[in-house]
């Protein structure tokens, strides 16, 4: 059982007994792991407080094949969460993305793109105040990392181009827009063309600061899509929603 060395983003923490802590980590090479840190001795206490949500850390851990939980031997800060605590919107934003990534991945799931995506978001949250359109933009990026990127370009069902009409049909279930033919068999909600175009440009990486209308629709699309594909609640979203 060799000692694993890795980088990780701390997703969640939970106290365990008097001095131990159980954390969920998204590691660069090992993917998502749950690990226990024993805080009994002086040298162990030293790294306990690096195991705080949103920290980017270097860790050393043991993981037995037969055990579900890894055991953390050492941890060091690479980049601390400092800056996220400065206002409510920052911590709600950081929590939302971390919770989202956590709830959409399985134990042991590896995803370097997601690691980097999360890391980028946490760095940005510390330095800029996210607008509502930033949140939609980054959410699409995370969905992309997870392989859940909605298709805003061609019919998600048959692959044909969707005619340039005022209204475009979006299926939560299939995760994309529908052509008129396919829309006869699959439930959808229709949205103004400009909204779908805007989201499609977000997917390509073009940031635009949409107007209020755009954001309301974009939020509606994303919320519907996510709630369809995720059967657990994102607890931090209800708080974040009050702030955006």
């Amino acid at each position, binding site marked *: 059982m060799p000692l694993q060395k890795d980088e990780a983003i701390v997703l*969640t923490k939970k106290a365990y*007994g008097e001095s131990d802590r159980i954390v969920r980590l998204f590691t660069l090479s090992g993917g998502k792991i749950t690990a226990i840190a024993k805080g009994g001795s*002086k*040298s162990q*206490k*030293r*790294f306990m*407080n*690096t195991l*705080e*949500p*949103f920290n980017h850390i270097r860790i050393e851990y043991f993981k037995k094949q037969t055990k579900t939980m890894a055991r953390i031997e050492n941890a*060091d*800060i690479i980049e*601390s*969460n*400092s800056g*996220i*605590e*400065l*206002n*409510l919107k920052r*911590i*709600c934003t950081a*929590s*939302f993305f*971390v*919770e989202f990534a956590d709830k959409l991945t399985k134990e042991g799931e590896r995803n370097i793109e997601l690691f980097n995506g999360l890391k980028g978001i946490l760095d940005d949250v510390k330095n800029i105040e996210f607008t509502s359109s930033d949140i939609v933009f980054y959410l699409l990026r995370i969905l992309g990392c997870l392989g859940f990127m909605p298709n805003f370009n061609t019919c998600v069902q048959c692959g044909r181009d969707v005619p340039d009409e005022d209204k475009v049909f979006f299926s939560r279930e299939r995760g994309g827009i529908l052509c008129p033919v396919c829309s006869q068999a699959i439930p959808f909600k229709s949205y103004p063309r400009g909204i779908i175009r805007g989201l499609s440009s977000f997917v390509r990486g073009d940031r635009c600061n949409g107007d209020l209308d755009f954001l309301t629709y974009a939020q509606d699309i994303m919320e519907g899509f996510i709630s369809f594909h995720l059967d657990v609640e994102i*607890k*931090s979203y*209800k*708080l*974040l929603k*009050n702030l955006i």
Partner: protein
Amino acid sequence: MYYPEPIENLIINLMKLPGIGRKTATRLAFFLLNSDESYISELSRSLTDIKDKIRLCSVCYNLTEKDPCQICSDERRDRDTLCVVEEPSHMMVIEASYPNRYRYHILHGVINPLDGIGPDDIHINELKLRIEKENIKEIIVATNPNIEGNTTAHYISEILKGSQVRITRIAFGIPIGGDIIYTDSQTIKSSIENRKDL
């Protein structure tokens, strides 16, 4: 094989306590089964008492039997300063170091969006009202120095912007009797930033 229903029920109820598994619960259940009648009635009375008699102080949200609580009614304590803490147990720790000195405000939690806990879920708004009403001069924010405690501290200072109250935060650094060798880099940084003239 199950025990008779009353024993089984007791075991199941004991298992709901933190850190108690079936084995310990069974051991406790049999201890209780073999105990004196008088101990059992005293134990059950103290269990119902904590729900019947204990409530939150309407001023500071401390656990109390009478409202306002003993601390809030204590005239010796500083009228100008409030210590803001997360939990009643944290208040007890400060109280042990500074007996009869401060008044407190107990938040009953911290802002923790990952658990869905926002400012409205803890007693923060009540703190703001209280500061105005009691004309408090200083609040010492003694929440834990972690991401949730720090967020809560910043939020408190944010909502009190424009009021006259002085807002202070407890210091973070190397614990007395501690060792630099066993100190993490964030704590070292904090202790250097908060250094004092000798």
